[in-house]
Protein backbone atom coordinates (compact mmCIF):
# COMPACT_ATOMS: atom_id res chain seq x y z
CA UNK A 1 0.00 0.00 0.00
CA UNK A 2 2.87 2.34 0.85
CA UNK A 3 4.57 1.57 -2.48
CA UNK A 4 1.34 2.15 -4.32
CA UNK A 5 0.88 5.48 -2.55
CA UNK A 6 4.45 6.54 -3.39
CA UNK A 7 3.97 5.55 -7.01
CA UNK A 8 0.74 7.50 -7.17
CA UNK A 9 2.33 10.58 -5.61
CA UNK A 10 5.28 10.53 -7.98
CA UNK A 11 2.90 10.07 -10.87
CA UNK A 12 0.80 13.01 -9.74
CA UNK A 13 3.88 15.18 -9.24
CA UNK A 14 5.15 14.46 -12.73
CA UNK A 15 1.95 15.02 -14.68
CA UNK A 16 1.65 17.79 -17.18
CA UNK A 17 -1.55 19.72 -17.62
CA UNK A 18 -3.99 18.17 -20.07
CA UNK A 19 -5.75 20.83 -22.08
CA UNK A 20 -8.99 19.23 -23.21
CA UNK A 21 -7.00 16.44 -24.82
CA UNK A 22 -5.32 18.73 -27.36
CA UNK A 23 -2.20 16.63 -27.15
CA UNK A 24 1.06 18.42 -27.81
CA UNK A 25 2.77 16.80 -30.75
CA UNK A 26 6.53 16.65 -30.84
CA UNK A 27 6.99 16.33 -27.09
CA UNK A 28 9.77 14.01 -25.95
CA UNK A 29 9.04 10.43 -24.95
CA UNK A 30 8.77 11.15 -21.24
CA UNK A 31 6.61 14.19 -21.93
CA UNK A 32 4.24 12.07 -24.05
CA UNK A 33 3.92 9.44 -21.34
CA UNK A 34 3.23 11.95 -18.57
CA UNK A 35 0.78 13.83 -20.75
CA UNK A 36 -1.24 10.67 -21.31
CA UNK A 37 -0.99 9.84 -17.61
CA UNK A 38 -2.19 13.33 -16.74
CA UNK A 39 -5.24 13.04 -19.00
CA UNK A 40 -6.40 9.97 -17.08
CA UNK A 41 -5.94 11.61 -13.71
CA UNK A 42 -7.50 14.96 -14.52
CA UNK A 43 -10.50 14.08 -16.69
CA UNK A 44 -13.56 13.90 -14.41
CA UNK A 45 -15.61 11.42 -16.48
CA UNK A 46 -12.63 9.04 -16.67
CA UNK A 47 -11.96 9.29 -12.94
CA UNK A 48 -15.65 8.86 -12.08
CA UNK A 49 -16.26 5.80 -14.23
CA UNK A 50 -13.21 4.05 -12.82
CA UNK A 51 -13.84 4.90 -9.17
CA UNK A 52 -17.50 3.91 -9.40
CA UNK A 53 -16.79 0.68 -11.29
CA UNK A 54 -13.97 -0.56 -9.13
CA UNK A 55 -15.56 0.32 -5.81
CA UNK A 56 -18.51 -1.73 -7.06
CA UNK A 57 -16.21 -4.60 -7.98
CA UNK A 58 -14.44 -4.52 -4.60
CA UNK A 59 -17.81 -4.45 -2.82
CA UNK A 60 -18.83 -7.60 -4.67
CA UNK A 61 -15.50 -9.30 -3.98
CA UNK A 62 -12.58 -7.62 -2.20
CA UNK A 63 -10.25 -9.87 -4.22
CA UNK A 64 -12.09 -9.23 -7.48
CA UNK A 65 -9.64 -6.79 -9.09
CA UNK A 66 -7.23 -9.42 -10.48
CA UNK A 67 -10.16 -11.18 -12.17
CA UNK A 68 -11.46 -7.89 -13.56
CA UNK A 69 -8.05 -6.74 -14.78
CA UNK A 70 -7.99 -8.67 -18.10
CA UNK A 71 -11.39 -7.24 -18.99
CA UNK A 72 -10.25 -3.73 -18.09
CA UNK A 73 -7.13 -4.17 -20.22
CA UNK A 74 -9.20 -5.50 -23.13
CA UNK A 75 -11.48 -2.52 -22.72
CA UNK A 76 -8.51 -0.13 -22.87
CA UNK A 77 -7.41 -1.59 -26.18
CA UNK A 78 -10.96 -1.62 -27.54
CA UNK A 79 -11.54 1.97 -26.48
CA UNK A 80 -8.30 3.08 -28.15
CA UNK A 81 -9.42 1.41 -31.40
CA UNK A 82 -12.86 3.01 -31.51
CA UNK A 83 -11.79 6.44 -30.16
CA UNK A 84 -11.09 7.93 -33.62
CA UNK A 85 -14.72 7.37 -34.56
CA UNK A 86 -16.09 8.88 -31.38
CA UNK A 87 -16.80 12.60 -31.23
CA UNK A 88 -16.51 14.44 -27.96
CA UNK A 89 -20.09 13.45 -27.16
CA UNK A 90 -18.68 10.01 -26.35
CA UNK A 91 -18.19 11.44 -22.86
CA UNK A 92 -21.92 10.85 -22.36
CA UNK A 93 -21.33 7.13 -22.72
CA UNK A 94 -18.59 7.30 -20.08
CA UNK A 95 -20.81 9.20 -17.67
CA UNK A 96 -23.69 6.78 -18.31
CA UNK A 97 -21.48 3.83 -17.40
CA UNK A 98 -20.30 5.74 -14.32
CA UNK A 99 -23.93 6.34 -13.34
CA UNK A 100 -24.78 2.67 -13.86
CA UNK A 101 -21.69 1.55 -11.93
CA UNK A 102 -22.56 3.84 -9.04
CA UNK A 103 -26.10 2.48 -8.91
CA UNK A 104 -24.82 -1.10 -9.02
CA UNK A 105 -22.42 -0.29 -6.21
CA UNK A 106 -25.20 1.26 -4.12
CA UNK A 107 -27.16 -1.96 -4.61
CA UNK A 108 -24.05 -4.07 -3.95
CA UNK A 109 -24.62 -5.90 -7.20
CA UNK A 110 -22.47 -9.00 -7.67
CA UNK A 111 -23.26 -10.33 -11.16
CA UNK A 112 -21.77 -9.50 -14.53
CA UNK A 113 -19.04 -7.25 -13.15
CA UNK A 114 -16.55 -8.45 -15.75
CA UNK A 115 -18.73 -6.63 -18.28
CA UNK A 116 -18.60 -3.54 -16.07
CA UNK A 117 -14.79 -3.67 -16.00
CA UNK A 118 -14.74 -4.03 -19.78
CA UNK A 119 -17.13 -1.13 -20.32
CA UNK A 120 -15.20 1.04 -17.85
CA UNK A 121 -12.01 0.35 -19.78
CA UNK A 122 -13.61 1.02 -23.15
CA UNK A 123 -15.24 4.29 -22.13
CA UNK A 124 -12.26 5.60 -20.15
CA UNK A 125 -9.85 4.90 -23.00
CA UNK A 126 -12.31 6.19 -25.56
CA UNK A 127 -12.83 9.46 -23.69
CA UNK A 128 -9.13 10.04 -23.25
CA UNK A 129 -8.43 9.61 -26.96
CA UNK A 130 -11.73 10.90 -28.36
CA UNK A 131 -11.58 12.39 -31.81
CA UNK A 132 -7.88 11.65 -32.40
CA UNK A 133 -6.91 9.31 -35.21
CA UNK A 134 -5.07 6.17 -34.23
CA UNK A 135 -1.77 7.28 -35.72
CA UNK A 136 -2.08 10.87 -34.52
CA UNK A 137 -1.52 9.95 -30.90
CA UNK A 138 1.98 8.66 -30.08
CA UNK A 139 2.20 5.19 -28.59
CA UNK A 140 3.83 6.45 -25.40
CA UNK A 141 0.98 8.86 -24.84
CA UNK A 142 -1.50 6.01 -25.20
CA UNK A 143 0.65 3.99 -22.81
CA UNK A 144 0.64 6.82 -20.28
CA UNK A 145 -3.14 7.05 -20.53
CA UNK A 146 -3.43 3.28 -20.05
CA UNK A 147 -1.17 3.30 -17.00
CA UNK A 148 -3.12 6.19 -15.51
CA UNK A 149 -6.41 4.37 -16.04
CA UNK A 150 -5.03 1.16 -14.54
CA UNK A 151 -3.70 3.09 -11.56
CA UNK A 152 -7.03 4.76 -10.78
CA UNK A 153 -8.84 1.44 -11.13
CA UNK A 154 -6.30 -0.37 -8.94
CA UNK A 155 -6.31 2.29 -6.22
CA UNK A 156 -10.12 2.41 -6.13
CA UNK A 157 -10.37 -1.37 -5.88
CA UNK A 158 -7.55 -1.51 -3.33
CA UNK A 159 -9.07 1.13 -1.09
CA UNK A 160 -12.40 -0.67 -1.15
CA UNK A 161 -10.82 -4.05 -0.51
CA UNK A 162 -8.54 -2.72 2.23
CA UNK A 163 -11.42 -1.00 3.98
CA UNK A 164 -13.54 -4.17 3.90
CA UNK A 165 -10.73 -6.40 5.11
CA UNK A 166 -9.27 -4.10 7.78
CA UNK A 167 -12.64 -2.95 9.09
CA UNK A 168 -14.98 -5.93 8.69
CA UNK A 169 -18.06 -4.14 10.06
CA UNK A 170 -21.41 -3.62 8.34
CA UNK A 171 -20.77 0.14 8.39
CA UNK A 172 -17.74 -0.24 6.11
CA UNK A 173 -19.74 -1.72 3.27
CA UNK A 174 -22.43 0.87 3.86
CA UNK A 175 -19.94 3.72 3.56
CA UNK A 176 -18.61 2.25 0.30
CA UNK A 177 -22.16 1.92 -1.00
CA UNK A 178 -22.78 5.55 -0.07
CA UNK A 179 -19.58 6.53 -1.94
CA UNK A 180 -20.81 4.60 -4.99
CA UNK A 181 -24.16 6.37 -4.81
CA UNK A 182 -22.36 9.73 -4.66
CA UNK A 183 -20.47 8.76 -7.83
CA UNK A 184 -23.81 8.01 -9.47
CA UNK A 185 -25.28 11.33 -8.32
CA UNK A 186 -22.27 13.31 -9.54
CA UNK A 187 -22.34 11.45 -12.87
CA UNK A 188 -25.97 12.39 -13.31
CA UNK A 189 -25.16 16.03 -12.69
CA UNK A 190 -22.28 15.89 -15.16
CA UNK A 191 -24.59 14.37 -17.80
CA UNK A 192 -26.86 17.38 -17.32
CA UNK A 193 -23.90 19.74 -17.64
CA UNK A 194 -22.79 18.05 -20.88
CA UNK A 195 -26.31 18.25 -22.32
CA UNK A 196 -26.50 21.90 -21.33
CA UNK A 197 -23.13 22.57 -22.98
CA UNK A 198 -21.44 23.57 -19.73
CA UNK A 199 -18.76 20.87 -20.16
Amino acid at each position, binding site marked *: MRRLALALLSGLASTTQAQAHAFQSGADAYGQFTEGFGVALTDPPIVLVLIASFITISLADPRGFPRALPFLAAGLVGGALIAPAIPDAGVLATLTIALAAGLLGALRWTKGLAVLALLAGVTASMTGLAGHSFTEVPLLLKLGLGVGILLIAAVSAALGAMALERFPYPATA*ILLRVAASWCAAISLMLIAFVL*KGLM
Partner: protein
Amino acid sequence: MTRTLALLTALLLASPAFAHTGEGITGGFLSGFTHPIYGWDHVVAMVAVGLWGAFLGSPAIWILPIVFPLVMAVGGALGVLGVPLPYVETGIAASGVVLGLLVALAIRAPLAVAAVLVGVFAIFHGHAHGEELPEAANPIAYGVGFVIATGLLHLAGIGFGFLTKVPNGQWLVRAAGVGIAVVGGMFLTGMA
Protein backbone atom coordinates in the same frame (compact mmCIF):
# COMPACT_ATOMS: atom_id res chain seq x y z
CA MET B 1 -20.41 11.44 22.39
CA THR B 2 -19.75 14.73 24.26
CA ARG B 3 -16.77 15.46 22.06
CA THR B 4 -18.79 14.65 18.94
CA LEU B 5 -21.57 17.01 19.99
CA ALA B 6 -19.03 19.73 20.79
CA LEU B 7 -17.42 19.27 17.40
CA LEU B 8 -20.76 19.41 15.63
CA THR B 9 -21.65 22.60 17.50
CA ALA B 10 -18.33 24.18 16.55
CA LEU B 11 -18.83 23.19 12.93
CA LEU B 12 -22.31 24.69 12.85
CA LEU B 13 -21.17 27.93 14.46
CA ALA B 14 -18.00 28.32 12.39
CA SER B 15 -17.98 31.43 10.24
CA PRO B 16 -17.37 30.89 6.55
CA ALA B 17 -14.05 31.64 4.90
CA PHE B 18 -14.56 33.69 1.76
CA ALA B 19 -11.12 33.57 0.21
CA HIS B 20 -11.21 33.14 -3.56
CA THR B 21 -14.78 31.94 -3.68
CA GLY B 22 -16.99 32.13 -6.72
CA GLU B 23 -14.63 31.13 -9.50
CA GLY B 24 -12.62 28.14 -10.67
CA ILE B 25 -12.58 24.70 -9.13
CA THR B 26 -12.22 25.88 -5.54
CA GLY B 27 -14.89 28.52 -5.93
CA GLY B 28 -17.21 26.08 -7.66
CA PHE B 29 -16.75 23.46 -4.94
CA LEU B 30 -17.34 26.03 -2.20
CA SER B 31 -20.40 27.38 -3.98
CA GLY B 32 -21.87 23.91 -4.28
CA PHE B 33 -20.83 22.84 -0.81
CA THR B 34 -22.27 25.90 0.91
CA HIS B 35 -25.48 26.03 -1.13
CA PRO B 36 -27.30 23.45 1.01
CA ILE B 37 -25.58 24.59 4.20
CA TYR B 38 -26.45 28.29 3.95
CA GLY B 39 -30.11 27.53 3.33
CA TRP B 40 -31.82 26.50 6.56
CA ASP B 41 -34.69 25.12 4.53
CA HIS B 42 -32.23 22.68 2.96
CA VAL B 43 -30.34 21.97 6.17
CA VAL B 44 -33.36 21.01 8.28
CA ALA B 45 -34.75 18.66 5.64
CA MET B 46 -31.46 16.87 5.05
CA VAL B 47 -30.76 16.49 8.74
CA ALA B 48 -34.33 15.22 9.13
CA VAL B 49 -33.66 12.50 6.55
CA GLY B 50 -30.73 11.30 8.64
CA LEU B 51 -32.76 11.58 11.85
CA TRP B 52 -35.69 9.68 10.43
CA GLY B 53 -33.38 7.01 9.03
CA ALA B 54 -31.70 6.58 12.41
CA PHE B 55 -35.11 6.44 14.00
CA LEU B 56 -36.36 3.77 11.58
CA GLY B 57 -33.17 1.76 12.04
CA SER B 58 -31.48 -0.59 9.62
CA PRO B 59 -31.73 -0.69 6.61
CA ALA B 60 -33.51 2.68 6.38
CA ILE B 61 -30.64 4.33 8.24
CA TRP B 62 -28.43 4.02 5.17
CA ILE B 63 -30.97 3.54 2.37
CA LEU B 64 -32.61 6.94 2.89
CA PRO B 65 -29.28 8.84 2.76
CA ILE B 66 -28.49 6.95 -0.44
CA VAL B 67 -31.88 7.61 -2.06
CA PHE B 68 -31.93 11.33 -1.24
CA PRO B 69 -28.68 12.41 -2.97
CA LEU B 70 -29.41 10.18 -5.96
CA VAL B 71 -32.90 11.50 -6.55
CA MET B 72 -31.69 14.99 -5.66
CA ALA B 73 -29.23 14.69 -8.54
CA VAL B 74 -32.18 13.93 -10.83
CA GLY B 75 -33.81 17.12 -9.63
CA GLY B 76 -30.49 18.92 -10.02
CA ALA B 77 -30.18 17.71 -13.60
CA LEU B 78 -33.70 18.97 -14.33
CA GLY B 79 -32.79 22.33 -12.82
CA VAL B 80 -29.60 22.62 -14.87
CA LEU B 81 -31.47 21.72 -18.06
CA GLY B 82 -34.09 24.34 -17.32
CA VAL B 83 -36.96 21.89 -17.01
CA PRO B 84 -39.57 23.78 -15.02
CA LEU B 85 -40.81 22.35 -11.77
CA PRO B 86 -43.66 24.13 -10.06
CA TYR B 87 -43.68 25.12 -6.42
CA VAL B 88 -40.01 24.31 -5.80
CA GLU B 89 -39.66 26.54 -2.74
CA THR B 90 -42.99 25.29 -1.39
CA GLY B 91 -41.83 21.72 -1.84
CA ILE B 92 -38.58 22.44 -0.04
CA ALA B 93 -40.36 24.11 2.86
CA ALA B 94 -42.95 21.35 3.00
CA SER B 95 -40.18 18.76 3.20
CA GLY B 96 -39.01 20.31 6.45
CA VAL B 97 -42.53 20.29 7.86
CA VAL B 98 -43.36 16.74 6.80
CA LEU B 99 -40.04 15.12 7.64
CA GLY B 100 -39.88 17.01 10.93
CA LEU B 101 -43.35 15.80 11.88
CA LEU B 102 -42.48 12.24 10.90
CA VAL B 103 -39.60 12.35 13.35
CA ALA B 104 -41.56 14.25 16.03
CA LEU B 105 -44.44 11.79 15.92
CA ALA B 106 -42.10 8.79 15.66
CA ILE B 107 -43.89 7.52 12.56
CA ARG B 108 -42.48 4.15 11.48
CA ALA B 109 -43.28 3.89 7.81
CA PRO B 110 -42.44 0.87 5.66
CA LEU B 111 -39.10 1.24 3.89
CA ALA B 112 -40.64 1.64 0.43
CA VAL B 113 -42.95 4.39 1.62
CA ALA B 114 -40.11 6.18 3.40
CA ALA B 115 -37.89 5.96 0.33
CA VAL B 116 -40.59 7.31 -2.00
CA LEU B 117 -41.43 10.17 0.35
CA VAL B 118 -37.79 11.13 0.75
CA GLY B 119 -37.28 10.83 -2.99
CA VAL B 120 -40.19 13.13 -3.81
CA PHE B 121 -38.78 15.87 -1.59
CA ALA B 122 -35.27 15.31 -2.90
CA ILE B 123 -36.41 16.34 -6.39
CA PHE B 124 -37.35 19.81 -5.14
CA HIS B 125 -34.08 20.28 -3.30
CA GLY B 126 -32.04 19.13 -6.25
CA HIS B 127 -33.95 21.33 -8.68
CA ALA B 128 -33.18 24.38 -6.55
CA HIS B 129 -29.47 23.52 -6.45
CA GLY B 130 -29.33 22.92 -10.19
CA GLU B 131 -31.26 26.05 -11.10
CA GLU B 132 -29.10 28.21 -8.88
CA LEU B 133 -25.78 27.06 -10.30
CA PRO B 134 -23.75 30.26 -10.30
CA GLU B 135 -22.45 31.23 -13.71
CA ALA B 136 -18.89 31.77 -12.58
CA ALA B 137 -18.65 28.44 -10.82
CA ASN B 138 -16.94 25.36 -12.16
CA PRO B 139 -20.00 23.13 -12.69
CA ILE B 140 -18.25 19.87 -11.92
CA ALA B 141 -16.87 21.16 -8.65
CA TYR B 142 -20.27 22.68 -7.84
CA GLY B 143 -22.00 19.33 -8.40
CA VAL B 144 -19.43 17.49 -6.30
CA GLY B 145 -19.74 20.13 -3.58
CA PHE B 146 -23.47 19.99 -3.09
CA VAL B 147 -23.65 16.18 -3.27
CA ILE B 148 -20.98 15.88 -0.57
CA ALA B 149 -22.56 18.59 1.59
CA THR B 150 -25.91 16.80 1.36
CA GLY B 151 -24.33 13.51 2.40
CA LEU B 152 -22.58 15.13 5.33
CA LEU B 153 -25.82 16.73 6.51
CA HIS B 154 -27.48 13.32 6.41
CA LEU B 155 -24.55 11.97 8.42
CA ALA B 156 -25.04 14.71 10.99
CA GLY B 157 -28.69 13.74 11.25
CA ILE B 158 -27.81 10.07 11.63
CA GLY B 159 -25.25 10.94 14.30
CA PHE B 160 -27.79 12.91 16.24
CA GLY B 161 -30.35 10.17 15.61
CA PHE B 162 -28.17 7.68 17.48
CA LEU B 163 -29.42 9.41 20.61
CA THR B 164 -32.45 7.15 20.24
CA LYS B 165 -30.25 4.41 21.65
CA VAL B 166 -29.68 6.15 24.98
CA PRO B 167 -32.29 6.36 27.74
CA ASN B 168 -34.76 9.16 26.99
CA GLY B 169 -32.72 10.06 23.92
CA GLN B 170 -35.73 9.36 21.77
CA TRP B 171 -37.43 12.43 23.25
CA LEU B 172 -34.49 14.62 22.26
CA VAL B 173 -34.67 13.33 18.73
CA ARG B 174 -38.42 13.88 18.59
CA ALA B 175 -37.92 17.38 19.96
CA ALA B 176 -35.46 18.00 17.13
CA GLY B 177 -38.18 16.83 14.78
CA VAL B 178 -40.50 19.45 16.25
CA GLY B 179 -37.84 22.10 15.73
CA ILE B 180 -37.37 21.01 12.13
CA ALA B 181 -41.09 21.12 11.48
CA VAL B 182 -41.29 24.61 13.00
CA VAL B 183 -38.47 25.89 10.79
CA GLY B 184 -40.11 24.28 7.77
CA GLY B 185 -43.39 25.92 8.73
CA MET B 186 -41.72 29.31 8.98
CA PHE B 187 -40.42 28.94 5.43
CA LEU B 188 -43.78 27.65 4.24
CA THR B 189 -45.66 30.62 5.68
CA GLY B 190 -43.07 33.13 4.55
CA MET B 191 -41.96 33.99 8.06
CA ALA B 192 -38.37 33.01 7.18
